[in-house]
């Protein structure tokens, strides 16, 4: 039968960009965020690649990518993401960035997922990143799962192994550099992915062309949402002031450096 895999993935500023907070009429945001280069959220991207891999191993599976962001920004990011793996885009035209309330974001995502035509909940695997590179709260996917009534959830996932009987083993990151090993009897389930084990797929123009045939019409029909603040107020938003006065040593010998490092390590 295969799985119906829905991947929730936001878009984030390219990690190498300098970020500066700015307050606008709708609250805090990132200065010039709309013109900063954007990428698919890194952990959510891992989820997408793992979803495609899982779908490839289980015939009859299908992957949907649900993404909330400004339509123009989504289109820009999808031009590159579409070349990686096959999926059907379900875009939601909404605000960008990490400052909107996670509860409201989850409500919009859950409503949209619940309305995907042909999606069978008995075959549903809800994927996403365990935390985003914007809000980084690790709650949105969990809330979406809760709203969809999915009672088996896993976060910080690095691996899934599906067995012949439909059960699956999941490795979740826990404290101290270990994985918790769980076995679930079957779907539906929520998996918030960490890094996973797959390298980023190479660009495939054929996959890109096939994806773009459905992506552009989907973007044109994207539903617009506004997100409730849920009483969330920002008292302050600021950049950390942690610029250090760096001492750069270019002429010390290895022996001198080693002695200084050992003394530093031992000092309280």
């Amino acid at each position, binding site marked *: 039968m295969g799985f119906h895999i829905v991947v929730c993935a936001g878009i984030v500023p390219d*990690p*190498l960009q300098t*970020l500066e907070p700015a307050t606008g009429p709708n609250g*805090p945001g990132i200065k010039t965020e709309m013109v900063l280069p954007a990428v698919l959220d890194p952990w959510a991207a891992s989820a997408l690649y793992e979803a495609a891999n899982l779908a490839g191993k289980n015939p009859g599976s299908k992957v949907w990518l649900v993404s909330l962001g400004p339509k123009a920004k989504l289109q820009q990011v999808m031009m590159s993401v579409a070349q990686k793996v096959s999926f059907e885009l379900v875009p939601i035209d909404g605000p960008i960035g*990490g400052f909107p309330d*996670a*509860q409201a974001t989850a409500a919009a995502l859950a409503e949209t997922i619940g309305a995907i035509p042909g999606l069978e909940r008995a075959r549903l695997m809800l994927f996403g990143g365990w935390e985003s*590179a*914007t809000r*980084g*709260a*690790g*709650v949105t996917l*969990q*809330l979406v799962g*809760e*709203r969809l009534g999915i*009672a*088996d*959830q*896993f*976060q*910080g996932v*690095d691996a899934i192994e599906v067995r012949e009987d439909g059960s699956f083993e999941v490795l979740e*990151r826990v*404290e*101290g*550099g270990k*994985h*918790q090993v*769980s*076995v*679930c009897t*079957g779907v539906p389930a929520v998996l918030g992915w960490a*890094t996973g*084990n*797959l390298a980023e797929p190479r660009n495939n123009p054929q996959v890109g062309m096939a994806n773009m045939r459905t992506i552009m019409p989907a973007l044109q029909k994207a539903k617009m949402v506004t997100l409730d603040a*849920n*009483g*969330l*107020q*920002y008292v*302050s*938003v*600021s*950049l*950390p002031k*942690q*610029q*250090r006065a*760096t001492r*750069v040593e270019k002429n010390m010998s*290895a022996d001198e*450096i*080693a*002695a200084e*490092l*050992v003394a*530093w*390590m031992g000092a309280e």
Partner: protein
Amino acid sequence: MESILVLTHADERGAALSKGSLEAVTAGRELAARLAAELTIGIVAKDATDAARQVAGAAKRVLAVEGEAFTQARFKSDAAACEALCRAARATIVLASESSRFARVMAAVAHRAAGVIDTHVTAIGGADSVEATRWFYRQRIEAVVSREKRPWFLLVDAGTNAAFAREAGEAHVERIAVELPAMRTNVMGFRSPKTDHQMIRPDAKLLFVAGAGWTKKQPDGQIHVEQAGELILTFVNAAGASLGSSKSLVDQGGEGNSVLPFLTHLNQVGQTGSTPRHAKGLATCCHGEEPHVVGWRFVGERRAVSLDPNCGWTRGKADVVYVADAFEVMKRVNELLEKAAGSQ
């Protein structure tokens, strides 16, 4: 008037409370004292007797959900336990530690309680109101937030409060019954990376980060991965340091390049890795690019050894940068540590 519930859970052994839970108790005590609010502690454990002793004197009311099912850190049972504790306590503010166990369930619990949640909280302040400090964009922007809606759930990051130490007296535990539906998930245990020793040590004083330079060509035109591995492992074990890595180094394994076999994505520090808390950090053969350095936000003193005099560390991200060959430096450091150990 606010009322506060601190949710706690037992550690892996099952009886004692986790360190993060005891830190959350401290945060709850401080907040309750400031707001003159009533404090309740909730415990999730197989048997809460020993755990309750650990919080003696912390709060007038201690609630517990107990049973074999709660030995496992599992979404369905943990969410049911926390939901029952919240309903019994009827608190307006719920604090808990940002442990993997509670991070997995607490947003769902907040939703069931018709509340809201904020996570990775590093400080709780405010004069007349409650204000929570947390980071956005992977520790690149700091914000202080407040909310009108209640109950407000706050998950507090580990290491931001001292662990509560029990006071005189006994805690009288009210047991809360929870009827669990059938479980579809079973926790089988834990799995560690295939190494001789656990080298991710959250409580270590020093973080040692290995960058991609360790596997690049050295001045003799050759790659010395084996030597790099030996130097790193010797140092980490001798110094009792926690081993971290840059993304570029752990990614090399997936790209068919020479790799250090003991490094996995679990060691990765930075934007798509961890943000550990250590008093000191030493980066080696690492460029100090922003996506990696955001993971150093909570590392106190920082030093780096790099051949690149213009690497990111020199631009205000480290206290000291040694422009030198890390192979040579770490060899000498290991010799000094071995000598020091031998003389003891």
